[in-house]
């Protein structure tokens, strides 16, 4: 660095007028095969990032993010669950000595000890040895924690009926239904109502009949011949009623 007299500046600023060469540092004398981060290694990192991004985008396209029906605070039958990475903490609160009167143990003492120990790990594991095999306690406790997290998450996941849970949160399309119309009466008499529901919105065994986009002929065909898990021959009435039923269903539109 230039010191003392003879310093030159750009105009009246404090920026030195003398230009420094814009060249990367030289790492050739460093031990091993050291590489410059800029630009050599950064390019490789970008390639890893690009591959990762492709996987990420495939995941995004293959599985659109879920959206359940709008929150309804009056629906007390809904089974609440946190996002998957909180399931292990949630599961802990279901065990006898970690819930109810012992809630403090499950909600604060156990997680507090675990996360506190994680945060203070460098001050607990103070030896100079770094290899996992030379630190049996640190390695052991961490493996135990990972095993517990996996176990608790697993226990939490298998306890849930995911299909029922999905049905609980499903967005329901509602339609104005005239329950006195011929179509609805036939719908009821033929037992369609048992699977497709009294609001025609479907259920766990059958899809919604609202806004299907099908013509009356197509609906009549499905009623007679079935589709998917619906067996043929479900409709047992006469053809005149079938026409009315098909007309009724094909004109149902969501509100």
């Amino acid at each position, binding site marked *: 660095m230039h010191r003392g007299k003879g310093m030159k500046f750009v105009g009246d600023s404090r*920026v030195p007028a003398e230009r420094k060469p814009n060249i990367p540092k030289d790492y050739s004398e460093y031990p091993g095969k*050291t590489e410059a*981060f800029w630009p050599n290694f950064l390019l490789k990192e970008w390639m890893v*990032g690009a591959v990762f*991004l492709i996987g990420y985008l495939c995941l995004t*396209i293959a599985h659109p993010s879920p959206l359940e029906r709008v929150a309804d605070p009056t629906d007390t039958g809904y089974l*609440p669950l946190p*996002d998957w990475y909180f399931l292990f903490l949630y599961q802990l609160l279901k065990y006898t000595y970690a819930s109810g009167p012992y*809630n403090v143990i499950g909600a604060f003492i156990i997680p507090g000890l675990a996360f506190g120990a994680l945060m203070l790990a*460098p001050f607990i594991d103070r030896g100079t040895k770094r290899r996992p095999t030379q630190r049996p306690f640190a390695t052991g406790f961490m493996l135990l924690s990972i095993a517990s997290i996996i176990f608790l998450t697993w226990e939490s996941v298998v306890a849930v009926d995911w299909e029922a849970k999905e049905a609980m949160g499903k967005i329901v399309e509602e339609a104005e239904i005239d329950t006195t119309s011929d179509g609805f009466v036939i719908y009821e008499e033929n037992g369609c109502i048992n699977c497709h529901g009294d609001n025609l919105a479907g259920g766990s065994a059958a899809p919604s009949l609202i806004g299907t986009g099908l013509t009356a002929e197509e609906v009549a065909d499905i009623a007679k011949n079935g589709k998917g898990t619906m067996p043929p021959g479900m409709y047992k009435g006469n053809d005149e009623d079938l026409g009315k039923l098909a007309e009724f269903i094909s004109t149902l539109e969501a509100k």
Partner: protein
Amino acid sequence: MLNKIYDWVDERLDITPLWRDIADHEVPEHVNPAHHFSAFVYCFGGLTFFVTVIQILSGMFLTMYYVPDIKNAWESVYYLQNEVAFGVIVRGMHHWGASLVIVMMFLHTLRVFFQGAYKKPRELNWVVGVLIFFVMLGLGFTGYLLPWDMKALFATKVGIEIAASTPLIGHELKVLLAGHPDIVGAQTLTRFFAIHVFFLPAALLGLMGAHFLMIRKQGISGPL
């Protein structure tokens, strides 16, 4: 042309040392997957940062449509998901990114832990890293409420009940989060929105700045 613009600016502001300080550093052999394939474990931290950047960008686009009130929140998310061009992709990236960032951060934490890389002189960086982990979990928890669908509301109710069971400060903590002693509703949503979009990201950026400053100052830990 670009060079001339660069020189013009550099002559006046002397910017070369600014970015050279960031750009010029060594990548030792033992962390370079080109030399040792097993060194891919060193990628997890960088990938966490990469997903974080994607979260910030996709989140910025989501707020162009999202409305944080109980009447419109769900409607705006539904619109974003079904009507807006590429809305399903942007929301999908934010949704999956939230999970990926937890996975990558978990792997990064395990790498540092099992290598004993947190030992002297890197204790402080480990503590800051664990704080980043907590902030990320907080972002996950607050972001879960924002679509205002069934799972959002009921998961948040449970979360707030757990917060309310904190000894001594439980009630205060609950009111602070929910905005009301009994109702999880409009106030809760705006609070969670503010926490998710302003408070926690600010904390996150500060902590990440400290995290990166320390790693540059100390250099990466040596081979085992």
